[in-house]
């Protein structure tokens, strides 16, 4: 071979996506906020070593009234700031754990259905449809009510109502990717099904899964809050939802007791959705090229 070959250096795909993400100011702001919330959650035992459920102050302290309790206290004299800090742990743990579990189930089922097709696909699609046609929040309430309302059961419950979304997405991705020549080539080289599914196809299906996952974390946080608001949360752990729920009776007089955790939920969910949008733009090169 005498052919001279030069390879034009080009930025790598993931590097380009990362730069696109970093250039997006909304995404940076949202990421900054989430890093802050995560740091607070980790540091909760250091900031407020005491149980946030214990009564430490005079009831109904307004924010700023007593510098020792900057966000005031509730009807039982519990420190709102401590509740907020400890509540972030529950929100994040449940949000992330439920997402991880739901995405795992969804990926396995969606990949199996999309890759094998045929009867396996028909059967799994039926299963997904059963879950998707049942009102998901009602199902969640029933699931949590049957099991004891604890962090674990809530997480499993939320995962069970969110996996179908991921499964549908993964199935669609796999159906189109399995037709690509590189998958045919992999079969022709004698690769096993597991290798083709997890090593050849899945990495190519990841971008939309990542985007959807960030939105799923947000909706899991919302679901947990809703459950806690209705009194179906873990009674031994404080969460943003249970703070709102516990103080809804005094909404007219001491509105800050619901507003403070409410704002925390809104900001966190908003940040997650903004990150989802930014990831979508960054991982979808065609879209970002048009800007």
């Amino acid at each position, binding site marked *: *071979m005498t*052919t001279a*070959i030069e*390879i*034009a*250096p*080009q930025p*790598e*795909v993931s590097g380009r996506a990362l730069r696109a993400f970093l250039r997006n100011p909304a995404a940076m702001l949202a990421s900054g906020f989430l890093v802050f919330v995560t740091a607070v959650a980790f540091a909760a035992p250091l900031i407020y070593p005491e149980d946030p459920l214990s009564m430490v102050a005079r009831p109904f302290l307004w924010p700023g009234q007593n510098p020792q309790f900057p966000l005031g206290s509730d009807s039982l004299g519990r420190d709102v700031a401590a509740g907020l800090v400890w509540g972030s742990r529950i929100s994040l743990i449940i949000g992330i754990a439920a997402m991880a579990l739901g995405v795992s189930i969804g990926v396995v089922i969606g990949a199996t259905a999309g890759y094998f097709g045929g009867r396996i696909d028909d059967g799994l699609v039926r299963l997904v449809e059963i879950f998707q046609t049942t009102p998901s929040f009602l199902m969640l309430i029933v699931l949590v009510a049957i099991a004891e309302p604890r962090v674990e059961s809530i997480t499993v419950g939320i995962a069970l109502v969110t996996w179908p979304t991921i499964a549908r997405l993964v199935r669609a991705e796999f159906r189109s990717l399995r037709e*690509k*020549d*590189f998958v*045919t*080539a*992999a*079969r*022709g*080289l*004698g*690769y*096993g099904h597991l*290798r083709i599914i997890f*090593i*050849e196809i899945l*990495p*190519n299906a990841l971008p939309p899964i990542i985007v959807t996952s960030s939105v799923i974390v947000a909706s899991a946080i919302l679901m947990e809050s809703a459950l806690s608001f209705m009194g179906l949360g873990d009674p031994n752990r404080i969460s943003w939802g249970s703070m709102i729920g516990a103080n809804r009776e005094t909404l007219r007089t001491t509105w800050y007791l619901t507003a403070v955790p409410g704002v925390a939920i809104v900001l966190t969910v908003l940040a997650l959705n903004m990150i989802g949008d930014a990831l979508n733009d960054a991982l979808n090169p065609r879209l970002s090229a048009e800007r």
Partner: protein
Amino acid sequence: MPLLSVADLHTHFRTPRGILRAVDGVSLTIEKGESVGLVGESGCGKSTLGKTVLRLVDPTSGRVTFDGEDVVRLSRDALGPYRRRAQMIFQDPFSSLNPRHTIERILTAPLSVHGIGDRNERRRRVRAMIERVGLPLSSLSRYPHEFSGGQRQRVGIARALILGPDLVICDEPVSALDLSIQAQILNLLVEMKRDFNLSYLFISHDLSVIRYFADRVLVMYLGRVVESAAGADLWAKPLHPYTRALIQAIPDPTRRRQAAPIGGDIASPEDIPRGCRFHPRCPIATSICAEREPALETHAPGHQAACHHAGKLSRPPEA
């Protein structure tokens, strides 16, 4: 004994509009070291035939015998040894390489899946192969999108050859490439054939590429082989009217502004005409052509055609 022999192979697909008969009774043989060209237009089933031979698609009926063993009867798990000996090179160098894997990973995986060599041995083989196809060693750590079409096709060739196959099916390997790159890849394929003693089934829609590359040529139309001959015979004396039309349809400066050789569209393989498949477009069709399907018959030594009027078309084309 030929390396590969295919007998009365059918590959049908069920579609919402009916049965699609992509491959509809094809027989062929490939001798060791032979380069067989398979030419035809889109929808003629040439790609499906290639994939069926490799068991990437399951045939509806028929036999594929490779080195004396019936490949169709092998279970999917027992295909391993066959996969090592029969490989494929794809048309589109953009979709045939996994965009998320480095070239090194793409080339090492076949070896590790088949348990060939230890780490060092694999590394040595991959390095030797990448240099053999004319790419620098530094390409190993790069991703497919960093290469041009021709360079990717070199990677595709390296991947097909890394397991040391005897038979390689080339599915339009240069159709997606620019003219100035096509010659490079064709020359590389020829060198590989010589160095590794390969047999090729070379699928293309481009008669001029087939002419350069094939010892023997099969012409396919709507799922069937309509003519089969040694390359030289086919160009000099095509027996089937479709082959003649194909040859005359190639843009050629010596035929300034001549009318198209045949009209009409290729029928859908879901709705194959009765009788001779080609008769609705055939310039010399008679009533028998609409009624009876002609069999592939020998008209001269090593020259077969499936046409009721094959004998009457002895005049060479004007080209």
